């Protein structure tokens, strides 16, 4: 196993040194920073413009009211504070109408009583001023009534402002924060497997292409090579994800957002969900990397890797689509079936566990299938890799290779 460690160490350093790895990590981190800062910047700008625009209508309304005129046909409104805002008081209704007809004022108000007024305009409607005056008159009447009957207005205000909250709860499902977590889990794992699966298979094919493979096989066992290479690529992927998470948290902190409130939903995670995510995420990730490494060994040229990995890539994309669509309705039977099939359960089971309250028994069954399958996949991958590693001819067919292994003709 010492050689597995050596292969791991060499491959890991080699990946970290690659310009493409460094550039991808930097670009992804910049995307994360941009994704946090840009919406936050626009949100702040919107908020400040809302603050400013919140005072504008009042100012506009004050100016509008100031330009108008009124005629008071009753003494009941002498204490009506709104009248102080309207500059011109007319002695009678006719002079008010004349001023309005001559466009000296934009509107006129004739107050007949505390509960009756005319709002006069000359062609140009002014519903804001009209509604405002109506509202103010209503308040004036209410306050007068409360005063006359010695009623505390705050008490009435309290009674009318009692809020009733209604929350619909489906006890089989978990909160909205979990939905976000399911999305993030699915997306990150999808990205990891697609990116690093291809990295592993390309690396294996390149060793065959440039004939380094024979030197490696002469010095160490194929088993150690595939284990070292797969784990190195796996760790490099996890390191990249970790760097994205750290960048996200730092950016959130510096952009002044409440990290705890944003990730609050995640904190509702219970132990079962956490273990399921880690168990299925890691075993599934490593299983796929083993499969990709074996498929890389079936070809002799780097440019043939795509042909070789397409079938497994299609299966994984199907797993991704089933899971993403399943999030809309986690009780979906397709998602349930996918959560037991090893190549799809890597995404489906953790997502079901995040979104639903499913029985631990279901998780244990799926985990058992997953653990058995990782043993089978890694065993087959090692055998395929061993068989393919020195075949420099045409691309080996997967079915034929599998037959050779099952018949034991590869040893």
């Amino acid at each position, binding site marked *: 196993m010492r050689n597995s460690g050596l292969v791991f160490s*060499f491959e890991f350093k080699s990946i970290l040194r690659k310009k493409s790895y460094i550039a991808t990590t930097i670009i992804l981190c910049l995307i994360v920073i941009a994704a946090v800062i840009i919406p936050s910047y626009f949100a702040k700008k919107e908020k400040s413009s809302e603050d400013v625009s919140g005072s504008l209508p009042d100012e506009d309304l004050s100016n509008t009211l100031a330009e108008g005129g009124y005629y008071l046909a009753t003494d009941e409104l002498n204490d009506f504070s709104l009248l102080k805002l309207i500059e011109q008081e007319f002695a009678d209704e006719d002079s008010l109408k004349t001023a309005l007809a001559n466009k000296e004022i934009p509107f006129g108000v004739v107050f007949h009583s505390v509960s009756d007024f005319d709002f006069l305009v000359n062609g140009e409607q002014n519903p804001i001023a009209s509604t405002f005056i109506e509202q103010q008159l209503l308040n004036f009447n209410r306050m007068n009534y409360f005063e006359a009957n010695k009623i505390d207005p705050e008490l009435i205000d309290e009674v009318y402002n009692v809020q009733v909250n209604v929350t619909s709860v489906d006890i089989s499902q978990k909160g909205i924060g979990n939905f976000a977590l399911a999305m993030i889990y699915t997306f990150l794992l999808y990205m990891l497997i697609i990116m690093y699966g291809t990295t592993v298979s390309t690396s294996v094919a390149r060793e065959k292409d440039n004939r380094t493979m024979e030197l490696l096989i002469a*010095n160490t066992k194929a088993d150690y090579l595939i284990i070292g290479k797969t784990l190195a690529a796996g760790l490099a992927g996890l390191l990249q994800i970790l760097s994205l998470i750290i960048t996200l948290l730092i950016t959130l902190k510096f952009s002044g957002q409440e990290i705890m409130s944003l990730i609050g939903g995640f904190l509702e995670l219970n132990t079962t969900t956490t273990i399921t995510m880690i168990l299925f995420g890691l075993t599934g990730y490593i299983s796929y990397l083993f499969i990709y490494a074996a498929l890389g060994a079936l070809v002799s040229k780097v440019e043939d890797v795509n042909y070789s990995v397409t079938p497994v890539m299609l299966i994984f994309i199907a797993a991704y689509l089933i899971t993403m669509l399943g999030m809309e309705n986690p009780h979906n039977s397709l998602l349930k079936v996918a959560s037991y099939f090893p190549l799809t359960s890597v995404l489906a089971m953790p997502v079901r566990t995040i979104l639903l309250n499913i029985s631990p028994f279901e998780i244990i069954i799926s985990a058992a299938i997953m653990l058995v399958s990782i043993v089978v996949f890694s065993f087959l991958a090692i055998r395929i890799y061993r068989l393919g590693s*020195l075949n*420099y001819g045409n691309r080996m067919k997967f079915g034929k290779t599998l037959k050779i292994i099952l018949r034991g003709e590869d040893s």
Partner: protein
Amino acid sequence: MKLKLNNINKSFGKVHVLHDVCFEVDSGRAMGFLGRNGSGKTTSIRCIMDIFKPDSGEILLDDQPFKPRELKVGYLPEERGMYAKEPIIEQLIYFGQLKGGTKQESKKSAEEWLERFELSEYATKNLEVLSKGNQQKIQIIQAFLNEPEMIILDEPFSGLDPVNAELFKDAIRDAIKKNKLVIFSSHQMGYVEEFCDDITLIDKGEILINGPLADVKAEMSHDKYRVEATNLNREQLKQVLRQIESDLNIEHDLLANEDKISLIIDLSNIVPNNFLQKIIAADVQIKNFSVYLPTLTDVFLHYVKDHDLQTNGTKANDSEKIQDAEHVAK
């Protein structure tokens, strides 16, 4: 240390590539492994290196099953390859460690060999920046890292210019002096003749000869002499030989072989003086009459042609089949 291959057989699909291959090599001696393209050299070497598992037979080191990964073996495959985009020193250390050395040992050894091959200035550069010849030297260096007990070199001289070949020859001579077991296959007979105490000749997957080169040459030169005349060309000299055959009632062909300069004659059961008297009597002015010392090329051609005649019709095109089988079918 003695490496011994006993009745190794290997097939790829329906093509039987190695037929009961047997040979042995001692440490402190270099063995030249010769054969035509597709004769089974690389497959035999890959079996020794445990890259291919033989279908039957055994490979022993001092009468114990040989496990190449448990011994320090320096190996230079025929199909060269190292990481083009990795720093040279890093990958040399890596290969040194894979062979069982510590990091410090491997680094020290790599630096010494880079110095010896005048490549120290490129230690931290990626392999791809080097010329093809220098890349070849790096690949040779990896075979010599960490003082291997056994060195197996498959076509090591291909691609080397005379100056670099000389550096490489010194390295091989040093290894032999240090009592290492050295096997190398080559088409370039001159190099094999220069280093090798022993030779093994393989053709169509069968071992034709295995033993000390001097013995092989002596056996081939037994009763054979080189004859050259000043007054006759080779055709005229052949006519004289035919006349002597009939005069002396010789039952076998006197003419064993010929090259551009002289004829090689077989004087088995004939006293050389009697032959000389006859040829002088035939008015031939002798320019050269000497014991025949075959070159390695002569040895190679002699045995391979013989084997061709023996196997003609039964194993026609086997070399091509073997070559294809090694590279394509499995």
